[in-house]
């Protein structure tokens, strides 16, 4: 039996979600709190079904997606509209997901909103000025 309750679904292009979740697992050991879904080859309706089924089977109420314009984001918005609950965060990055995985907030949607701010603030640029 897994120690961690599934708190979020991660979806994106190609192997993005699995890669991100594996990185969270390596860094925190809490990758089991996340479910990576792979949507390659699926039409929009099947992506919605996959997300809806995954949320129902895991009890998760948060979806992280990679790209604002991506088909996972489109599908997730439709699913959450139908469910009338949950949170979608589009534009996920590793710092964001680490913050979410490490959060002890029992409300996963609040943890997701806080993690989104963390992820937004985590981008920096270094190097010689142009």
């Amino acid at each position, binding site marked *: 039996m897994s120690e961690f309750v599934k708190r979020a679904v991660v979806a994106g292009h190609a192997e993005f979600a699995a890669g991100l979740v594996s990185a969270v697992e390596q860094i925190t050991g809490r990758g089991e709190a996340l479910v990576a879904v792979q949507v*390659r*080859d*699926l*039409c929009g309706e099947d992506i919605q079904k996959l997300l809806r089924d995954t949320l129902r089977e895991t009890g998760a109420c948060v979806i992280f997606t990679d*790209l604002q*314009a991506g088909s996972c984001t*489109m599908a997730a918005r439709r699913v959450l509209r139908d469910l009338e609950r949950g949170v979608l965060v589009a534009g996920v990055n590793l710092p964001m997901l680490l913050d979410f995985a490490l959060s002890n907030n029992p409300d996963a949607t609040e943890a997701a909103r806080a993690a989104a701010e963390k992820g937004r603030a985590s981008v920096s640029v270094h190097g010689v000025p142009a």
Partner: protein
Amino acid sequence: MTLVLNRIDDRLIHGQVVVGWGQPLDVAFIVLVDDAVAESDWEQELYRMGVPPEMEVRFHTAAAAALLLDGYRLETRPGILVTADIATMRALVAGGGVREVNVGGIHHRAGRVQHLRYVFLTPDEQRALRELSNLGAVVTAQDVPAARAVPLDELLAARESS
């Protein structure tokens, strides 16, 4: 410039369209032709959300789009036209407004056979693509600009295992 890509993609506006094609072609607008989306403010807002603010999105029914294509040809900026299915694109080809068709994504569904990684077709859809060609359109499959454009004959002959 004008409509630089007429694409059949069941995901309509998504990453490959906005980023994959949109950025290298410097696309200024997307024409989304879909009867259901054209009637739904919620769906239109959903698609607009995924597009950068400098890129305009216009929504039309198939009937309305057929009447507007001449105007789009006069646009000085490059644009992409996208439909979710072959039948909608057929209406535009039959009206004489579209001469080149890009099959960008027709994904897995029951009854469809895989031809390319991103193209699955039923026998009826195979015939429908052939009909586009018979109507005078050049039909190729290509998901992203860096990929090879696969001619229709090769697309229909191809069979891939999932």
